[in-house]
């Protein structure tokens, strides 16, 4: 080993029990409250994201069930209009923001370093921060809900109804400030994913060898960096207008209500791709494992992921087709909204071809991944129909769109997520989920979901508008809604079965080894659950399917996981170059640190002060935030950020 100036040659060693113990000592989370609040272990943070997002899923689900009881028949009186309007708005906010992205962040956080052969994410402390802010902003918004001041203008929050004259309570203030707060979590998380993808992959994992799941999260993250500021700005403008009489949206003063719609949907449309593309990636990686072959068309499927998002930046006006915009604009956005079907078709055909040219082994995970293909097609074609302007003028704001959004969100997010839970649960916990209960889980969810939401296309085509707390008799909607409500409850039982399976299997599930599915990617090369340091030595990757190399004809050498650079002077990780993943730097990784937690508390204080107009509290929150940041960013010898640091 030479140590000159800044450099060190990494030692190459074999994995041994002594090395494992040494690495565990270096990397394990400190015990007690300090460790709980200060951990930067991406696996712990990932589990927190999953659990918290699931809790919000259950909350949003309960909100939905109340609505389904109210709508099962005409003229019901379970809830009045004020309560119903908060229910449907809170349901949307909860599912789209507090469940759909964070659940994928949870999987991404846990899996990415393992998939990449890395020890952690690029920014472990920022990783912790993104979780704490997600939790704090979700709690912030739900405090409003609990106070009867939940959002009441839909998740999309159109003005002028969201403005002060029509909405004088705190509902919109909780929502506006809560969303700005939440936006910080998403942005911080996105930065982490982008830089991790660029710099933290194991040597040899060039960009054409990464799992498709990571393409999905990367694409979503780049998009989020570019569009989250748009919605944060919109909510800030609304908040300023409501508190201080600014004029952005109020028509009486020259404000433009449609400006809100542009700002919201320029964010909103890329966002809905951000909440499905990683899940699509999960299917692209998981389905082939059970088909016992690599996916058909890795390159086009990866490109299709990116193409979907790029096109997704250019379609936002399709949410505004009824606004009275000029025909030329409508035609352009209609065309783009129809073309965007093409990359989706690529993935669907690739999966179907993988099934047909593989040898599917039917497991619960496989059932969720395979059924998703059909649900994707149904959700995709209903979306395609709304892309045609004259047809959309009939479909928009009816239950047809509600059917569409649930097929894409439940079909392309939740079903892959549940498949992912069955697939990766053994890796996270060391135990398999019960397979028989899994089959009950799958069929109840699948039948319940389709029973609930397939008829919704019909109630939409029969003209039932959205966002109505009740409807009259004689419209032909009654029986369809009853079927939907029954399906909804059956679907909820299915979700409950998942939770039961998780609880039971945590204790009594069959013990899993490192690779119960004989899967090809790197996370299956470490123990279940993985050690805190992930890899005792840094792997050298030679193909897309490291653990299948002996069975697929590979041209280059063999991926090495049993011997490699050990990087054990402290918590250390290897960064590599962007395209080809050649070794670049030895990074010193941070110890457990409570600054992210403290910063979140400071920001919570600040946002609370803004909410209740206690400006001293807001200022205090701001100052404390700055102080926490300064402490966090203070150059550290241990992280080799100052001259003369040890190597």
């Amino acid at each position: 080993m030479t140590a000159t100036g800044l450099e060190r040659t990494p030692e190459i060693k074999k994995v041994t029990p002594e090395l494992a113990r040494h690495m565990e000592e270096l990397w394990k989370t400190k015990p007690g409250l300090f460790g709980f609040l200060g951990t930067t272990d991406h696996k712990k943070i990932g589990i927190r994201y999953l659990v918290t997002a699931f809790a919000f899923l259950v909350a949003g689900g309960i909100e939905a069930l109340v609505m389904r009881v109210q709508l099962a028949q005409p003229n019901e009186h379970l809830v009045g209009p004020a309560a119903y309007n908060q229910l449907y708005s809170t349901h949307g906010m909860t599912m789209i923001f507090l469940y759909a992205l964070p659940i994928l962040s949870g999987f991404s956080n846990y899996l990415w370093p393992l998939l990449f052969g890395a020890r952690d994410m690029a920014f472990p402390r920022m990783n912790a921060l993104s979780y704490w802010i997600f939790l704090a902003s979700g709690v912030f918004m739900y405090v409003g809900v609990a106070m009867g001041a939940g959002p009441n203008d839909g998740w999309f929050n159109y003005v002028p109804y969201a403005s002060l004259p029509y909405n004088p309570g705190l509902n919109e203030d909780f929502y506006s400030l809560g969303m700005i707060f939440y936006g910080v979590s998403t942005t911080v998380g996105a930065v982490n994913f982008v830089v991790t993808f660029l710099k933290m992959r194991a040597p040899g994992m060039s960009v054409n060898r990464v799992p498709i799941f990571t393409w999905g999260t990367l694409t979503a993250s780049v998009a989020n960096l570019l569009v989250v500021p748009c919605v944060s700005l919109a909510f800030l403008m609304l908040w300023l207008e409501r508190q201080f009489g600014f004029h952005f949206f109020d028509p009486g003063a020259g404000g433009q209500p449609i400006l809100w719609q542009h700002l919201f949907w320029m964010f909103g449309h890329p966002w809905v791709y951000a909440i499905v593309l990683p899940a699509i990636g999960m299917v692209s990686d998981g389905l082939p494992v059970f088909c016992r072959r690599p996916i058909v068309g890795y390159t086009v499927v990866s490109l299709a992921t990116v193409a979907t998002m790029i096109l997704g930046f250019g379609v936002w006006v399709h949410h505004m087709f009824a606004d009275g915009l000029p025909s030329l604009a409508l035609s352009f956005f209609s065309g783009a909204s129809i073309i965007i079907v093409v990359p989706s078709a690529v993935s669907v055909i690739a999966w179907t071809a993988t099934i047909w040219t593989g040898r599917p082994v039917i497991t619960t995970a496989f059932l969720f991944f395979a059924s998703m293909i059909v649900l994707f097609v149904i959700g995709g074609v209903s979306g395609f129909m709304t892309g045609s302007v004259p047809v959309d003028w009939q479909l928009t704001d009816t239950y047809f769109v509600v059917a569409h959004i649930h097929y894409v969100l439940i079909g392309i997010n939740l079903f892959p997520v549940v498949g992912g839970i069955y697939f990766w649960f053994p890796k996270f916990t060391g135990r398999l989920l019960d397979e028989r209960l899994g089959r009950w889980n799958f069929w109840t969810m699948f039948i319940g979901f389709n029973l609930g939401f397939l008829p919704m296309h019909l109630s939409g085509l029969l003209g039932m508008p959205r966002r109505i707390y009740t409807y009259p008799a004689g419209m032909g909607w009654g029986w369809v809604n009853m079927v939907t409500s029954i399906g909804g409850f059956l679907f909820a039982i299915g979700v409950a079965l998942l939770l039961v399976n998780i609880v039971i299997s945590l204790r009594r599930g069959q013990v899993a080894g490192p690779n119960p599915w004989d899967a090809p990617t790197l996370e299956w090369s470490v123990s279940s659950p993985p050690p805190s340091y992930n890899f005792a030595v840094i792997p050298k990757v030679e193909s897309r399917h490291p653990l299948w190399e002996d069975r697929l004809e590979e041209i280059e050498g063999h991926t090495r996981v049993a011997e490699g650079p050990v990087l054990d002077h402290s918590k250390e990780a290897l960064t590599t170059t962007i395209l080809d993943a050649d070794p670049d730097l030895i990074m010193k990784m941070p110890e457990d640190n409570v600054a992210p937690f403290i910063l979140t508390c400071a920001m919570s204080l600040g946002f609370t002060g803004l909410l209740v107009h206690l400006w001293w509290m807001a200022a205090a929150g701001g100052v404390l935030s700055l102080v926490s940041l300064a402490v966090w960013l203070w150059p550290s010898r241990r992280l080799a950020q100052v001259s003369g640091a040890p190597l």
Partner: protein
Amino acid sequence: MTEVLAKPLPVGPYDRRGNSWWGVMCLIATEGSLFAYLLFSYYYFDFQLPSSWRPDEHPKFLLSAPDSVILLISSVFVWLGERAIKRGNRAGASLGLFSGAALGIIFILVQFKEWADKHFTPGSSPYGSIYFTTTGFHMAHVTAGVIALLFVGVWNQLGYFDRERHAAIANAAIYWHFVDAVWVTIFFTFYITPYLW
């Protein structure tokens, strides 16, 4: 194939190699988008409303032009400061960083004077709202940049950085240049376009 892995590797970030550089690049992408949307809103009002949406008197250059030059010069100082530390010149680096910060503070003070001289408030009209929100956001970013430059200058004085280890200076510098570049687009939008159409 252990050859690739057996060569010496740098430990820790140095100059611009390291994760934090890419992190600041992502930050610039996201904050740049924010300003893009602010300007989008301005142009949206400009195209939707009659030209009377803007005050009759076009924005003045008397204060704003020199102020812009001050900001651009501050970037030069910061760039010189970064160049100094790359050559191991700690004192030069501090000089550049603190001068940049000082000019940034002057920029902010002149901007406050411009604000005070305006005949409209944020609550007067959409123009007032978008003007103060946009320039206010920019001022907040300048303030953050000044704080960053000051911290980094102090850290430099404490001897933390040398010709290799100065990632914080590189990060603060590129952030400062970004804030500068954003000002050019804001200046063009608010001060120049009223004369163009």
